[in-house]
């Protein structure tokens, strides 16, 4: 009999023999990195916020408004569209874990917003951003377009259905988590490179770590499907992915123009454009597609994300600890 493929319709419940142990490992690794919102100390941020100029304050308010809704959109798509089509229980374990992480992110940004915006009316306006701030609404509409593309599907019966699934998955991994969120992280790290908003940066580090894993999982799924159904990811689909990426860059650039206005120190919409193009090329490269922009990374401070942190405990809580540890007491192991 033929093996069940990852996107075959149905709800396989068999964990042994396990078809995709890599997904299960990703699930276990994610559990070891559990963090909670209570661990993030936002107190020092309040003093920093008071020192920001009006332009910087505008940037932060908009950013927080985007974060507040962004993770909810991702969570909704995950549970309403993706989960039902991934036909391997070990992969769905990971998606369940991802859903939990998205919930923690939503809680983090809610806590952040409550802390940053003490005024009740301002908070209400921030959450309504998706309705009345054009640059955020455009991003949300971009998301909804791709959510809707497979919204009506309850089974992936045809090849065309599976291609639509892939497009949705790639949109969420490469464009929303991989570009919109990465853009937003860059603003946070830009503040941190100037010694500002360390609490936001700490929480963002942890969100960033989670999102990196979500993206990697999604790309693993894409790789798996391409291996199982070699013809599915053809030139036409590739062209659609590139178009989608272009739209995402344009939407995020409009957001950047709204955030940066005429530019703030080292942060301008033009530099952000270069950064977004650079990131977009990386996403395309990960999918095995040629670079669309060929732009270099303008933000040297993003290099900080790639190397080990060594925090002085007087200063910050270190974010590098593991949660699950196994084994029994032994006195003769090598170390």
């Amino acid at each position, binding site marked *: 009999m033929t093996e069940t493929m990852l996107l075959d319709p149905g709800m396989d419940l068999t964990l042994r023999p396990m078809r995709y142990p890599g997904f299960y490992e990703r699930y276990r690794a994610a559990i070891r990195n559990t963090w909670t919102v209570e661990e993030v100390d936002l107190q020092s941020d309040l003093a920093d916020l008071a020192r920001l100029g009006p332009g910087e304050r505008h940037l932060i308010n908009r950013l927080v408004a985007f974060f507040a809704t962004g993770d909810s959109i991702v969570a909704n798509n995950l549970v309403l569209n993706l989960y039902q089509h991934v036909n391997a229980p070990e992969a769905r374990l990971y998606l369940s874990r991802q859903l939990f992480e998205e919930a923690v992110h939503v809680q983090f940004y809610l806590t952040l917003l409550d802390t940053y915006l003490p005024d009740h009316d301002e908070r209400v306006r921030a959450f309504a951003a998706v309705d009345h701030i054009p640059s955020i609404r455009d991003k949300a509409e971009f998301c909804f377009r791709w959510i809707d593309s497979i919204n009506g599907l309850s089974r992936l019966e045809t090849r065309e259905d599976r291609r639509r699934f892939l497009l949705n998955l790639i949109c969420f991994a490469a464009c929303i988590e991989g570009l919109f969120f990465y853009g937003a992280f860059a603003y946070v790290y830009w503040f941190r490179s100037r010694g500002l908003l360390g609490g936001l940066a700490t929480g963002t580090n942890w969100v960033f770590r989670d999102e990196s894993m979500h993206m990697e999982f999604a790309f693993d799924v894409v790789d798996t499907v391409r291996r199982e159904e070699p013809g599915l990811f053809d030139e036409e689909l590739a062209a659609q992915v590139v178009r989608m990426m272009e739209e995402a860059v344009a939407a995020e650039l409009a957001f950047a123009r709204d955030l940066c206005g005429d530019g703030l120190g080292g942060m301008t919409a033009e530099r952000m454009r270069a950064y977004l193009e650079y990131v977009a090329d990386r996403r395309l490269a990960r999918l095995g597609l040629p670079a669309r922009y060929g732009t270099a990374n303008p933000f040297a401070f993003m290099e900080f994300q790639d190397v080990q942190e060594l925090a002085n405990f007087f200063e910050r809580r270190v974010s590098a*600890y593991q949660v699950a540890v196994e084994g029994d007491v032994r006195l003769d192991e090598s170390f």
Partner: protein
Amino acid sequence: MTQTNGATLARPQGGPAAAWQAIEEAAAGVVADPENSKTAARLLGGLIADETARHGVRSFSESVAAAHAEGLLDDGLAAFVAAEAAALDALVDEAADDRFEYFGLRTVYDRYLLRHPVTRGVLERPQHFLLRVACGLSSSVGEAAELYRLMSSLAYLPSSPTLFNSGTRRPQLSSCFLLDSPRDELEGIYERYGQVARLSKYAGGIGVSWTRVRSRGSLIRGTNGLSNGIVPWLRTLDASVAAVNQGGRRKGAACVYLETWHADVEEFLELRDNTGEDARRTHNLNLANWVPDEFMRRVEADGTWSLFDPKEAPELTDLWGEAFDARYRELEAAGRYVRQVPARALYARMMRTLAQTGNGWMTFKDAANRTSNQTALDRNVIHLSNLCTEILEVTSDAETAVCNLGSVNLAAHVTAEGVDWARLRATVRTAVRFLDRTIDLGYYPTPEAEAANLRWRPIGLGVMGLADVFFTLRLPFDAPEALALSTRIAEEIALAAYGASADLAAERGRHPSYGETRAARGVLHLDHYPASPVHPEEWAELRLRIEATGLRNSLMVAVAPTATIASIAGCHECVEPQVSNVFKRETLSGEFLQVNRYLVRDLRRLGLWTRETRDAIKTADGSVQGLPGLPDDLKALYRTAWELPQKALIDLAAARQPYVDQGQSLNLFMAAPTIGKLSSMYAYAWRSGLKTTYYLRSRPATRIAQTTVPAVRPEAAAEAVACSLENPEICEACQ
């Protein structure tokens, strides 16, 4: 990343904003070329000079006058500097700024230079700051010159509180305070909160024991209720510590110690968990286990461990060694325990806490007391260590132990030919005299701290830059030569420090409690160990001198973590191996990249310092083990803390211990810890005679996707390899 090239690094025009951008770009280029660090530092030096000039400050004496006019400095210091202005101004060595790396100078600028209360601009240049610190501890120009030269050559730096506060109106110069456990009563506990807050306010780190406080379920006679145990009290302590901000420079920090027989020990170990009921968690407190030998013996024997309520067994806290063992067994035989657990089950719980939180440090009560100079009399007992586990001093309700710290930068005492022993000893002698001076000049936030410090006069001289010594001399951490050299360094420091303290005793008298010490009974710290010193004849001579003069200080050597001052000095921290060949530091002033400059020098020599190499090192999380073309001996030399056998770190610490009369902040590293490995490692540390250990560092199970190294589809990478193996003639990778 963008390559930062030299062309953009010219002195910026157009005011501070442009200057900052140039500085940040140079700093971000550090990974490409470590020289960019010096460039960024020079640019920052220029910016600082401009900023001070805007406040009318050009010379040292002008800077002291300006800061004094703003109420920041002590009247006596201002008068001294005004009277000696010409001589002191002439001491300033402007060229010494070139010794700073960017991270060091940025730290100095952000946190140490005195600032105008209103404009927030700095009122002193880096060299002014060091000379001001020196003047605050001196009574003559000659003395100030001696200390200033040591600091400006980055050969020695006192601890942060001394750097922050020397010469100010409230010169709190001590690094750490150790408070005995509050008495088991409401008033005692609230009194302790107040003391902790006052000590913390002036930049001191806090260690406090909680062992005397009754455990959960214990009867409270006054109300006929049952106690909720120690957790609710520690929650209050947690909130109190977090509320105290050390003058805006850093957050308050405290470590709570609990003895392993306390019946609340399991709940104590959960205080830092990020799951469970938040009402039973303390997110800011650090935790340490104060472990008696009897517990470790029972772990080895796989025996039972009895947990006691301190209200029922109050005497255990004040006993150690055989007296403790006998009393513990007696109470146990009489069935007076709250409950019993398998010793290994509790030990496994301790190991789990270490792996999950890095906290729950293992410190050993009996080793600490058995070897201490302060515990010759039964009534003097060490009950805990401090925030960084390197200080071990007696405490009681009336005495809060204090320690004044400073560290010798070993990197400044080594050349390719070896360690300059004469210079090292000279540095130590000067350092000891000035550490002793801080005891008399310091401001003490509580009478208990003042009483203890004037009676015992302990100091904690430590080291930093041991890894730099090993890199310079090409000794891997686990080489036998490294062990011999590290031990010799510790011995030379101890010899010079004890000699200097004996000289001070001859000049100014022995410390008031000298009669209560082991030294007064002819026993020196190394006598507790089977040590074979390099200089036995010098030790014999020193012994005779001490017999005649006594000592000015009851304790002298402690290996502190040196996190901040090693950054200023630009060397590796204390006795630690490097964590990575490329890493970032996160501090209150933002993030900084550091590259192993020794490695870069070697790679340059081999023609391997390329963009590809940098990306490969970053991709490998700072490891060079997979770097093609790097010879095996260099791979061994440039292993990171994650790649070194931890046994070697413990062996180095154990061999050094005879010459370290207090403790060592020994961090241990394990990328993916298991209970089996951890329990073996800490049992070995205990058997080796270490008094304390510090953090367990582990690595996150998942990581952030890298953004500045090339992205590759894994299959594409695999295909490329396969292709080169199977079709060598057509593979473009082979051209």
